[in-house]
């Protein structure tokens, strides 16, 4: 059993205040164990920091992609489809931010052939497809390769979106 007597001020992460280098190897097996714990803790926090950074970069790329849909012209797909409006793009950006926060990152973003922006999260054969329409309204369907699917109207306030994302997570991961 080791007694941690706060060595030199080292790495500060919440309740953990350990500098792995401040434990001399000569402390024997307890010292080595403490050092291993401290190194593991540091690796963990570095990993978390890296994850957060990667998430920010990923979110920024998704938002940039949706923003780019604003440059499309009517008939962008060789058919009669209208271009996404600023309202549709803003709704999609709001939704995507919340999805990434909840670890439900979209797997596909595309302009919609009926007008607006389509946001998909697919897990195996299950999809949650959310359509942000040009008038700013949002509807979604959860389905697999066979079922008729379950539709939802999505209101764009934080509470309603979080509730909706709870349903999406339960459906996709259930």
């Amino acid at each position, binding site marked *: 059993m080791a007694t941690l007597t706060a060595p030199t001020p080292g790495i500060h992460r919440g309740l953990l205040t350990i500098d792995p280098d401040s434990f001399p190897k000569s402390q024997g097996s307890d010292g080595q164990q403490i050092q291993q714990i401290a190194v593991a803790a540091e690796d963990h926090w570095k990993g978390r920091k890296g994850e957060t950074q990667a998430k920010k970069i990923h979110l920024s790329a998704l938002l940039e992609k949706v923003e780019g849909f604003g440059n499309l012209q009517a008939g962008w*797909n060789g*058919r009669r489809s209208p271009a996404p409006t600023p309202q549709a793009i803003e709704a999609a950006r709001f939704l995507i931010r919340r999805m990434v926060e909840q670890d439900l990152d979209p797997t596909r973003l*595309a302009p919609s*052939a*009926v*007008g607006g922006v389509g946001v*998909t999260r697919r897990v195996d054969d299950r999809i949650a497809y959310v*359509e942000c329409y040009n008038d700013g309204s949002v*509807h979604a*369907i959860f389905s697999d390769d066979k079922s008729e699917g379950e539709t939802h109207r999505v209101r764009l306030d934080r509470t309603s979106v979080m509730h909706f994302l709870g349903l999406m997570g339960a459906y996709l991961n259930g």
Partner: protein
Amino acid sequence: MASLPAGMKAHKRGPVDDFDEDEPLYRAFREQDLDGDKVSIDAIELPDMSVNRGRFGQPYWLLHLGIWEGCGVAAFEVRDARYSFPHLGVIHYRFDVVHTPTQDNYPHSEIYAYEGERHIKTPERMDPTVHLRYRNRLRQRLRVVIRPGEYTAPE
């Protein structure tokens, strides 16, 4: 520009109203319309979605039209396109395929949506829950028959 197969020209032929339930319908799609091995819902437009009838042409004919050069073709059947959504025991929305030939594309047809007996011509007039369910139905049934880049129409 690719030449059109002879059978593609209308040559004064008019529309043929009858469809067999198992007649294939072909639809061109772009590489970016695929999500995995399926055409994504976002790439399926309504109402008046364009398709080509299998009775009057081959799937690759679509790729002779300049705008679909290098694209792929997916297929489904007339029975997949025909569908009704009852509401309170009454058929409220109905989808059906209609042969609408053009001068350079005789097999051209469209999937019409009806509210009661009225043909709906703009998506804003459709209930989103209905068109999402219908487009999802087509997504489930569309199967890729020519992958993008797989066929090059001769000059």
